[in-house]
Structures are given as C-alpha cells and as structure tokens.
C-alpha cells in the first residue's frame, strides 16, 4: 500500500527554533505516537520501538529514523519492520514564517508491505493517516510547550 498525505501545523514558535527541533533525532523521536523506546545513534539517526495496531493486527515495530537538512528545513525518513511487515515514510518539511510563529508544511509518502497491508486492509489507510498526522501534531505541541 502506498499513500500520500500532507498537512500544515501552525506553531507558535520562531522558525529557527522549529528548524533545530526537526533536525534533532531525540526531539523528533519523542514525537512518534505510541513510542516505547528511543535510542539516539548520532546527530542525524535514531532507533525507536513503537506499538502499532491496525484492526486485528497489533505488535511492536522497530523504526530507523534519519533526519537530513533540506533547504531551510528537513526530510524525515522513517523505515521499519515488525510483525513480519515493513513500512516506510519519507516526508518533506517546509517552514514558513508567520506573524504568530511558523507554519510547518509537511508532505509524507508512506508505504506498507506484508501481512499488515493485507490483514489491515481497508483500515490501514485511515490508521496510517492518523499516525502521521499525530507525529506532526506532537511536534507542534512539544515545541509550543517548550516555547511557553
């Protein structure tokens, strides 16, 4: 299954602070929904264990996270496996200064392989969208709680 999502988070924080945040694997890693463990390997890489459940399929996934600067923003690449399935998410993040702070525009291509794609079937797209949206929503709320 391949899906594309996009969205915008209006963050009440300055652009430079947002930029540094999304290039920090420790910060971004902690925004992963249902995170259980996070290990930062180096300034651009981390490994995370997350809980994932789609319909009847539930289990733990091991994710490799890679953050790279791209223009004045970043790419976030997540790849992982678990429960005999594989997933990947490649997202481009673009930042825009606003009077209230920063608009974080994101676009994500997610791909799921294996039994999760088959068994999760019709539920999967909605679940994938929810998870990706939650990641960026978590980035916003974490930044704002720091900013406040």
């Amino acid at each position, binding site marked *: *299954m*391949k899906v594309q999502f996009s969205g915008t988070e209006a963050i009440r924080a300055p652009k430079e602070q947002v930029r540094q945040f999304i290039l920090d694997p420790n910060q971004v890693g902690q925004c992963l929904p249902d995170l259980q463990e996070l290990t930062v390997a180096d300034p651009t890489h981390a490994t995370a264990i997350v809980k994932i459940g789609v319909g009847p399929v539930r289990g733990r996934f091991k994710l490799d996270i890679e953050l790279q600067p791209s223009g004045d923003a970043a790419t976030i690449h997540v790849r992982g*496996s678990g*429960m*005999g*399935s*594989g997933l*990947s998410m490649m997202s481009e993040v673009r930042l825009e200064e606003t009077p209230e702070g920063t608009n974080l525009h994101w676009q994500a291509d997610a*791909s*799921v*392989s*294996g*039994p*999760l*794609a*088959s*068994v999760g*079937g019709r539920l999967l797209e909605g679940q994938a969208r929810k998870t990706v949206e939650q990641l960026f929503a978590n980035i916003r709320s974490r930044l704002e709680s720091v900013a406040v």
Partner: protein
Amino acid sequence: MSATLTESPHRVLGQPIKRKEDPRFLTGQGRYLDDIKLPNMAYMAIVRSPYAHARIVSINKEPALAVPGVLAVITGEDLEKLGLAWMPTLNGDQQMVLAVGKVLFQYQEVAAVIATSREAAYDGAAAVEVEYDPLPVVVDPFKALEPDAPILREDRKEKSNHIWRWESGDKAATDKAFAEAEVVIKEKIRFPRVHPSPLEPCGCIADYNKTQNHLTLYVTSQAPHAYRTVLAMVTKLPEHQIRVISPDVGGGFGNKVPVYPGYVVAIVGSMLTGRPVKWVETRTENLASTHFARDYHMTVEIAATREGQVKALRVHTVADHGAFDAQAVPSKWPAGLFNICTGSYTFEAAHVVVDAVYTNKAPGGVAHRCSFRVTEASYLIERAMDILAHELKMDPAELRRKNLIPADKFPWKSPTGWVYDSGNYHHTLDYALNLIGYKELRKEQAEKRARGELMGIGISFFTEVVGAGPSKHFDILGIKMFDSAEIRVHPTGKAIVRLGTRHQGQGHETTYAQIVAEELGLSPDDVLVEEGDTDTAPYGLGTYASRSTPTSGAAAAMCARRIREKARKIAAYLLECGEHDLEWADGRFQVKGAPHQSVTMQQIAFAAYTNPPPGMEPGLEATYYYDPPNLTFPYGCYIAVVDIDKGTGEVKVRRFLAVDDCGTIINPMIVQGQVHGGLTEGFAIAFMQDIVFDENGNNLVTNFTEYMLPTAVETPRWETAHTVTPSPHHPLGAKGVGESPNVGSPAAFVNAVVDALSHLGVRHIDMPITREKVWRILRSAGIDE
C-alpha cells in the same frame, strides 16, 4: 480394443454405489497429515518476506535461537552450503528454497525455525530479524515487458522478464483467412489469478533416519512417486532410501502437485536436528505462497463469414507466471494444452502465441486443471463465440450449431494438431437445449426485456482434453505420463489393487473397486484400493488433469484382464476342458453351451494357491503399466439462466444445466458429485475470486474474508444430465470428468450476464463479475431501479 461392455447380471460398472471411503470421512476417521504424530517430533515455522522485491541486507538468527524450545534456524545461506538453496521447477526453471540475496515475492520463504512445539516455532519465526532494502516492484506483466522494467531474475543469463514464447498453428494460413474475412471480432479477455484453496492446506512430516540414511516423507501430495523422484534428484539421497507416504488428502485441485520449499526445508531440518519435523502451513500461507491458477491476459480474434461460418482463430496471450516458472507441464507444452482453444468448432486455421512473463508475485500455475490451460482456452473460445454471435446478431445456440464439429468427422484433427477421439456434439447441444426449454426461455427474455427486466441465457459448449498422456508427447521431467495398477487376488477371492495415482476426495476407492470388480467378477466390497505409499504402489505420475480414470482406470482394467487370462487357464484345468471352450459371462468362466458348468473367481483364486495346474506358477496377481494411445476428449453443453437486480447489480443464477459427455460412466453418483463440486468452483471464479495485488506487490486477499469461497447460501441449484459417447481407445470407453465443470462453466455464467446486458451495448465483462461491476455498468447505461 473393444469399448462395449457385455450386459450381464454381474454388472458393477455404471452403478451408483455409495462411496467406500465416505464412512471414515463422514465420521471424522480420516487420517490426514496433521493427524500424524511421531515420537520426538519437532515443528517448523517459516519466516516470510513482507516485501515483493527487496535485497536481504542481513538475517539475525540469535533472537530466535534464544526463544525457549527453538532447536535450529535455517536460512538460504545455510542451504547454499548444502547445495539446496535452489531447486528445479517442473517447467525447466529453478526456484529458491529459502531466499538467497533477495526476495522476489511477498510471503516468499526467507528462513525456517525448528522447535519442540508449534508455538515455539512461531515465536522463533517472529523473533528472526531480517533487514531488507526494498527494490522497485513489478506486478503488471505488461509493464514487466517494457524496456526500462527492473530485471527480476538476476540469476538467469537472459536479462529480461520475458520467460519464453510458444507458438502453435499456421500463422500464414491464419493471416490469409483474416485478410479475406467478411467479419472479424477482437476482444481482450482476462482469466483472473485464482487459488483452489483446498480445505486442508499443504504440509509434511520429514523423518530422516541417519543410521539407515533413510527418509520417510509424509506429505499432502497428489503425486507421491513424482515427489520421490524429484527428492532423489534434489537431495541426492538414493531413491530406494526415500519413502513418500501421502495420507488422506483434504482436497487438492492441483495445489498439491508441486514440491514446495517447505518440504525441502523440513527434510533439512530433520537431518539437522535428528528428529521428525512437521510443517503445516496456515491458511494465509496457503493462499499467498502456494500455487495459484490462470492469470492469463488473452487477446482473441475470430475471422468468419457474414453467415456465421468461422474460418480462423488468432490468439495472443501474456501469461503472468510470478517470480518463478513453476508450472507442471509436459516438456513439449510450456503453455500446457492451451492450443485446444479452437474448441468444439470447425476452424480451418489458427495461430496461437503465448508469452510468459516474470512478475513479483507468488509462483505457480498448477491448480484447477493443472497447468494444462484448458480452462483458459475453453473460456476464451466460448466467450469469443458469443461476441461473434452478438456481432452477427445471431442466436448463440444457432452460431454454435452451425460450427460444431459434425459427428461423422471424428476422429477430427484440429488446426493446432489435436486429434479429437469422439463426439456427437449436435446431439448433445439439442439434448441440452430441449432439456432446459431454450425456446421458451428466449421468449420469456424478450417479454421481460420489453418490460425493462434483465434476464440472460448463457451457453458454453466446451471440449476438454484430458488423460495425459501418451508417452510420445507427455512427460514430467522426462518421466513418461503412463500410469499403473497392481492387483493381487488373495486365496479366498478377495483382492487388493494398488495404483500410482492419489485421490484427494474423488472417490477412487470406489471407482477403481468397481472397475476391478467388473473385470474379475467380484463384488466391489471385496476389492480394497490402496494409493499413496511409494513403497507399495507401482510407479505412477499421480492424480491431476482428470487423468486418473483415463490412465490408472485403464491400467486397472487391463491389469484385471491380465489376471483373467491366467484365471482362464486355471478354470479350464478345474472344468477339465480346453481354454477355448470357455467363455467369460456373468462374472464367471463357463463352458460354452453349458452355462451350469462354471467356476467363479473365488474358486479360481483358491485353486491358484491350493491346486494350481501342473507346471503353472502359483498365485494370482499382475501389474500393468498403461500408456494411453491418445488423450480423451470429454465435452459438454452447459446453460446458465440469470436474472439481474437493477437496483443492486446482484446476479441471481436461476437455473444451471450441465450436460456432460464423459464417455462410459463408472459411478454416476460420483460423477454427479464431481460435477456439482466443479460447477461450484466455476461459479466462485465467475463471480467472486481474484487474487489482487497492490502496487507494492502486497497480496490483498490472504484470508477467506477477502478471498471468497461460496457456501450453501450463495451456491445455485445444479441440474445435471449426460450423453454417452464412449472413448474408442480407452479399455472401458471412459473419458474423465473431474475438471469438466470447472473448465466449462465460467463461460456459461459470463455469457449469461453479458446476454442480459447486451442490449445496453455490453459485449464483454471480465471475471469476477461482482455486484459492483454490474451496478456500475447499469448506472453508466442510465438504468435505475
């Protein structure tokens, strides 16, 4: 060889005798693979690929080895050291046993875990860490042929996804006929990828004894002897040290013909651990990794006259074989017998081309009519004939009548080289049309159409080609496709017959008993049929392609006749007369003109062991290997009547009549059961089934909520009837029937639905014809409730 049977009071053939095997099946006493438990037995689970195409970066066994109960973890690298990472397919290709370097389809076997319990094996499999690097995926066979497509099979010399091209017929004559044709029709027709889904999935127990260097493999196999030979070739164990036992098999439909990677790994597992290793796949593993059927993308053209006389047929097919070309076909026929696609009609010329292609899908092709592709061929021609009728505004029954091969033209040679042994097609067509009341149905349809109601009638007049096969043309891996029988008559006149075939529910234990009983003057109750043990049964190629009765059934009859020849000598001795004074009548030998002077087979058998004629070798047994002189050509006329709900698009099959001509019928009740089962499969294929992949090569139908099997609720009521045109070359005149309904019915269903919608401009709908498809057609035609 005479095809006629003497009428006598001792008449076992043709009787609807209740199946001898049913009491044990119906009372839960069948002994299937998973019922077998050996002392000290270990269990195996397979780690499968989530990706359809990916490099394997690394495999970490350690977490699995740490799981309590895990005895061993086997990977492709381990097998490579043993020379077992790849194995030959039955079609000249090779396939990975466990993935080496990369995976080529989702659910491909990557590693195996052996453990002391089934649970520990699955826990261990979940703990194996495999790192993949995904590669571009090719699921569309047409895209696979494009120049920039990624090359899937890097192990081959040819750097292309094209596997082979096969041509049949006369291109020049066909092109000429098309150039001169008054009418030409052309259509693209897909036969979906389907899976036979036997109730019992595949499995085995490998029991290797190191001190004796002996392997016993209990396995769900339709062809145990072929397995033994393949295993001898793959494992290098001496063939006499391998015993293959196929216990009761819970449905096969071709799915249990191939040797699967799991069997080879289980054997290695048993060698490594010194224990018997059981592997039974799950439903999802069965659906997603074992052999599918069909997946033929066909383009058909017919050249005809304006009056509806067919002249020539042109077919081009792209065949999606998945990641490995793992069909089971005779070496001469890479696309099976697909060139039977001129069907039941008097085409003068034909040209058939098949291009086989690799994609990132599970390998296969051996299911439902084996790899012989007769179903695809029959569906294609029967669909195309309806399209031609539509084009010519002719009644489809009339078009068929005009073009059917006349009875006096048999044996008839088709433009692609087949010699049809026998048939009386016009008689069968008329019989079927009368039986269903065709004229009245057409009248009813016209009235309903005038009222805006949707009703359709679909005809399929198929010709099957079964009983592979004559040794001059047919082999599997070079082994000729004869089959065999061995009969031993015991001193008290009871007999055991052993055969090289293996039934999976077809009723062999009854059918063969009837044949032997008929030939030897015994009661079927006194004949035990045994199959499935390579140490006891004579060599044979197994049960698939409707070949059991045409080959082993013939072998059983000929073997019994061989016994009868010896029995005649003993009878002459007992009756103190010359052999030529005797005649075989009423199931006994009697003196010509003095029928009260007779001996039964029981008396003869007793004498064979207690009082044989001086100089004669004692005992009463024989073996016969039957090499059929030709294939057999069962045929039939199927008619479906459907009503379509304009609001929901639901198709209701109101009536379905199957008139089969399978030659001499040995047990009409068993034949009816086979026809009912095959029609139900055909119904599922026409309306429900397709193995669907997404663009990543994810199989989206890996369980029975997504891949539908009809239950009693959906299944229509079947009407069956027969005409009998005995095969002139089979010892009993029998032709085989197991697959006829699966071959013949899909076209009847689809023709009926298209017929119901033809006035809306609909010419063809690809299977499966779901409610949604019909609903969309109705809405786009502006039809509302």
